[in-house]
């Protein structure tokens, strides 16, 4: 190493970086997906991991099915209200740093199924980092989503996980509705929820 006119000369095999960037680089290139595959998008997820569109090229080699060993939850497919507590429990069982990709139209917004049983978007109940549109999305779209997530991790990642203190960011998200009143089993007796529903249906107008 030589100091030459105020500039530090480094040999070829030394590079200088920030610890945050280094940690993000390591994390983004070895994302271990947790496939929360429920429906048709699950088959496209399997196809993305199979030999033609190989997800292992991007570091997402091991599809660990245990939440304790994963850092990327890919929710592929519609989530119904019977399954949502399971989804939330698995999300809570994952260790930080963790990210979530909502794959497909059903996981992002409810998709074609605007019915009594399907949750209209998992981002109402868990925090989502990346949405993949499509029904089902092509494997290339999912791979693009993983690449975009890798860029996001590189941009915003910190070694201590400070980027997850996103209270301010989450509060501005339109989709999240915090239900402050205590939940009852029978939704018809939940006044906050009924008020929200009435307001939403007035906004949409009568359904033909």
């Amino acid at each position, binding site marked *: 190493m030589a100091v030459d006119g105020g500039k530090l000369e480094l040999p070829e095999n030394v590079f200088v970086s920030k610890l945050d960037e280094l940690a993000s680089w390591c994390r983004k290139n070895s994302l271990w997906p947790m496939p929360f595959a429920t429906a048709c998008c699950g088959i496209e997820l399997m196809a993305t991991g199979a030999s033609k569109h190989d997800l292992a090229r991007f570091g997402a080699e091991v599809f660990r099915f245990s939440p304790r060993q994963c850092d990327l939850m890919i929710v592929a497919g519609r989530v119904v209200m*019977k399954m949502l507590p399971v989804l939330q429990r698995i999300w809570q069982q994952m260790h930080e740093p963790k990210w979530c990709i909502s794959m497909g139209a059903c996981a992002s917004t409810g998709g074609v199924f*605007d019915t*009594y049983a399907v*949750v209209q978007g998992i981002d109402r109940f868990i925090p989502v980092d990346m949405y993949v549109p499509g029904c089902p999305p092509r494997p290339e779209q999912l791979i693009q989503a993983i690449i975009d997530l890798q860029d996001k991790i590189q941009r915003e990642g910190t070694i201590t996980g400070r980027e997850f203190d996103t209270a301010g960011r989450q509060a501005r998200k339109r989709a999240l509705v915090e239900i402050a009143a205590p939940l009852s089993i029978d*939704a018809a007796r939940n006044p906050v*929820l009924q008020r929200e529903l009435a307001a939403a249906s007035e906004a949409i107008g009568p359904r033909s």
Partner: protein
Amino acid sequence: MPHTPAAVDEVVADVSARFGLLETSTFRGQTRIVVRSVDAPDALRLLNQLGFDLLVDITCVDYLEYKGAKHRYGLVYLLANTATNQRLTVRAFLDDPDPTIRSVVPLWEGANWLEREVWDLFGIRFEGHPDLRRLVMPEEFTAHPLRKDYPLQGRGERHNFPVITRDHS
């Protein structure tokens, strides 16, 4: 659909002689008979003995908004004969309040889950069913979703959950 209507007619005549059918009809090659709901399990037992050994499906139709309907619920039993490939549709009508019918689980074990689903989605009680619980909806769910007076988007049950943000997890 190549059925052999002649042979099915004999079976229908047998059942009619024993139980007195309310209606018999044929549509697009399918023979349908209507029995009284109290007779339905016995008629099905007779049909089972006459060779209709495969229970294809048990389902229900809610006729609340149907033009010209006289009863609210129509239970449909679809039967097939694996030896001769004949099919038969048996219908029984039920009404509010408290639609009840005897279970056919003693005849066909496959009816177990099919009847549980009809109970879950329509609210028709099956007497004598070994384990009448909800099948597809959560246990805590209170309504019967496939009835015509239940809205398609539900009554808010689908969003009745706590929200988990980044701060909690």
